[in-house]
């Protein structure tokens, strides 16, 4: 079956402009797909069909006047449930925020909404975005539309699955250590993590503030460029948002890669990487060479310490950020004899195992006597990784690696082994530590028919270069990345 909801946003936007389809018909298509499939997939925590249909109807009236139309107008969008939506429940996949209804919108959503975006719902995720499989959600796992017995990746697993299965045309996720790129890789979607500060974090419920970014899931590189263009830019509500010009990212998308300097990260093809993943990514590099890119070998010498540094820095920031869940102002409260007991009980009952683990890890790493050896040293390693990137980007315009060392794994396979789970993010974490943009694009399927993602990384604010390289590869490979489920 191929329905409206299976098309890309750029195709749909043209049809809307030509009056070939209505926004209501498009919203109905995505909503119907969710009704058919989401019982099996579990992508949505809070679907918003009424909101979507009302909005679409307003847009049809507006578009009928022939008024100017943004590239996001009328296109069904899903939001990861860590982005706040005024009046719509936002849970972070956590029992502690199960009934939380924010009184304000995240800036990324404000901008998309202002440009006519149609919200179809809030998506499932690992609790507080902590995880790589979506199994840490308090509301149950998400099933990968490519094989319902496998994980969709995480933490933005619901957004990834929704886009892969046509329940949304595109979606926002958040990426702190790979939480957009890794699920994009595992679900055959395009996943963008922009430069740190490119998109405002206002209304992104904080996990690790120096690493958190708002990213996108789309079914084409062009769509990612369109979404980013609407969301990006300075926001006075986020002091870390960057005051840099926002180009039209869709311009020059088809310029090709002739002369582009592509560095292949040699260390990213070693132990622990599936042979099929390595060979598909290498084949992708060969295509870039064939298209005229100048390919060489690159290295990030300190990348081998990135995972260790990340699992000190991110939990440390999380232990501080999550101190706000104390049962006083919002969220779950479990009564106690006094305020302190109330706080212990609320947090003991409200947080799941992975969130507790990271709060404990961060608390330990920041505690007296350990701070310098753990957190302090991790911050120094971060400096070395920034220097590695600076050196690599003197020689290359983009760096290539696999996005994830493996394809989708069975639900439950790594659930009891946190360290094995953390290794899923070994290739995505360095970009968060370095603040640089990176994108995952599909580059093939493994023997079991599961998607493989290729990661491209550019220097800070180099999104346009990323899009150009990713679009060239996408065009050349011409893959049909629709899960078999949709052929049924």
């Amino acid at each position, binding site marked *: 079956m191929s329905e409206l909801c299976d098309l890309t946003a750029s195709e749909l936007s043209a049809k809307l402009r030509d009056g070939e389809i209505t926004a209501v018909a498009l919203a109905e298509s995505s909503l119907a797909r969710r009704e058919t499939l989401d019982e099996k997939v579990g992508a949505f925590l809070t679907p918003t069909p009424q909101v979507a249909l009302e909005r679409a109807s307003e847009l049809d009236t507006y578009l009928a006047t022939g008024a100017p139309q943004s590239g996001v107008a009328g296109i069904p969008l899903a939001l990861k449930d860590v982005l706040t939506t005024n009046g719509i429940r936002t849970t972070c996949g956590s029992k502690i925020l199960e009934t939380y*209804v924010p*009184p*304000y919108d995240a800036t990324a959503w404000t901008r998309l909404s202002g440009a006519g975006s149609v919200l179809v719902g809030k998506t499932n995720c690992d609790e507080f975005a902590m995880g790589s499989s979506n199994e840490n959600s308090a509301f149950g796992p998400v099933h990968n539309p490519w094989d319902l017995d496998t994980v969709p990746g995480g933490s933005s697993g619901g957004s990834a699955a929704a886009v892969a299965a046509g329940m949304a045309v595109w979606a926002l996720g958040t990426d702190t250590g790979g939480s957009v790129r890794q699920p994009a890789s595992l679900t055959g979607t395009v996943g963008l993590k922009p*430069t*740190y*500060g490119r998109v405002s974090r206002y209304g992104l419920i904080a996990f690790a503030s*120096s690493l958190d970014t708002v990213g996108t899931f789309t079914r084409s590189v062009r769509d990612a460029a369109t979404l980013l263009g609407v969301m990006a830019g300075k926001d006075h509500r986020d*002091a*870390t948002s960057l005051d840099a010009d926002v180009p039209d990212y869709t311009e020059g998308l088809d310029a090709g890669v002739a002369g582009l300097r592509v560095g292949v990260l040699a260390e990213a093809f070693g132990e622990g990487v599936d042979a099929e993943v390595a060979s598909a990514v290498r084949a992708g590099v060969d295509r870039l060479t064939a298209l005229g890119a100048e390919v060489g070998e690159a290295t990030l010498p300190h990348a*081998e*310490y990135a*995972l*260790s*540094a990340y*699992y*000190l820095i991110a939990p440390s920031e999380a*232990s501080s950020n999550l101190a706000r869940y104390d049962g*006083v*102002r*919002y*969220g*779950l409260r479990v*009564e*106690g004899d*006094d*305020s*302190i*007991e*109330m*706080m*212990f009980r609320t*947090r*003991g*009952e409200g*947080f799941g*195992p992975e969130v*507790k*683990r990271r*709060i*404990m*890890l961060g*608390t*330990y*790493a920041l*505690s007296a006597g350990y701070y310098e050896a*753990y957190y302090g*040293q991790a*911050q*120094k*390693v*971060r*400096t*070395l990784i920034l220097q590695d990137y600076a050196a690599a980007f003197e020689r290359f315009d983009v760096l290539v690696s696999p996005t994830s060392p493996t394809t989708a794994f069975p639900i439950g396979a790594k659930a009891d082994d*946190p*360290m094995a789970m*953390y290794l899923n993010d070994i290739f995505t974490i360095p970009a968060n*530590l*370095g*603040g640089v943009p990176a994108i995952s694009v599909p580059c093939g399927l493994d023997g079991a028919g599961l998607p493989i993602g290729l990661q491209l990384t550019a220097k*800070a604010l180099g999104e346009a270069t990323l899009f150009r390289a990713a679009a060239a590869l996408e065009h050349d490979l011409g893959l049909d990345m629709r899960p078999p489920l949709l052929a049924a």
Partner: protein
Amino acid sequence: MPVEIDIDHVAKLARVELSDDEKARMRDQLEVILEHAAKVGEVAAGDVAPTASPIPQVNVFREDTPEPSIPHDAALSNAPAERDGRFLVPKIAETGS
């Protein structure tokens, strides 16, 4: 490098109630994770400056223009308990007898 953790102490600092089972499991898991994390200590970085933010910015100010803020009732709308327009909590101090 084996790591030993005083789980009770850390849980107290973190204000998280943990069952005995959780503590035992947490101790084992954190020790494995920290042993891996301790790899950061292998890097000779004595004279390297720490990085707190990848794209540091200083003195970020905006115009000092008043804007509407979240209305009082909206700010209280998620309160587990409230009274007289304020958040209500269990006693936080002993009262004199």
